[in-house]
């Protein structure tokens, strides 16, 4: 038997364009599709501080160090890599 389940998000999506205001692949997969993905440095900070084992940040920092990017240049490159 097939049932059609419409939640409140589906209802809003049928009437408006909805963006995702999170840098979250898991939320995007669970609740998508969306139109745009917004982002800013505060949202990136949220992802970084929620990283349970720090593996994502550690791997990015290690990679950038190998490229000789340290200090402020390294921080900006890490933010850019995370968002892209």
């Amino acid at each position, binding site marked *: 038997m097939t049932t059609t389940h419409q939640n409140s998000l589906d209802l809003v999506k049928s009437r408006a364009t909805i*963006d*995702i*205001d999170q*840098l*979250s*692949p898991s939320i*995007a*997969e669970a609740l*998508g*599709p*969306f*139109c*745009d*993905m*917004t*982002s*800013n*440095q*505060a949202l*990136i900070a949220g*992802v970084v501080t929620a990283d349970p084992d720090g593996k*994502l940040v550690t791997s*990015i920092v290690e990679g950038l160090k190998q490229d000789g990017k340290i200090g402020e240049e390294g921080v*900006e490159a890490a*933010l*850019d*890599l*995370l*968002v*892209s």
Partner: protein
Amino acid sequence: MLAKAVNPYITGHVHAQLSPRYAHSIPESLAHGRRLIELFSKHGIPPNRVCLKIPSTGAGLVVCSQLQKEGINTLATTLFSVDQAVAAVQAGCYYIAPYFNELSVHFEPETWVDYGDDTAQKHPMCPVIRDIVELYRALEKRPLVMPAR
């Protein structure tokens, strides 16, 4: 890495914000924007799917104008006034993001003001955003309005 992972579930743009430290420098902002576009391309997201968020300073809006001419869509952010919204039209921005709340409310909860059941009348940004929307309605070529919460 995050946009690359989210991209399969997105039909429009992925947004990336230029560093606020370059908010008053045209060449630094342009260079940062181009670095971001190159990174997104490396991650399989072409320039026409990226929107660069740029502070609505004098320099920032010049950068928006230049990037739009190069085919890169821009969003004018840190936008608090009708004047900035007019400048964003002149720059050809694809979006504007007028701030609704103060940014601090996300980090210092005590700065959030409860306007009760009369937010539309009492919140200081409501008339600003209303004026911007009314102004834009009279224009044929206008940015989309994406208020920031």
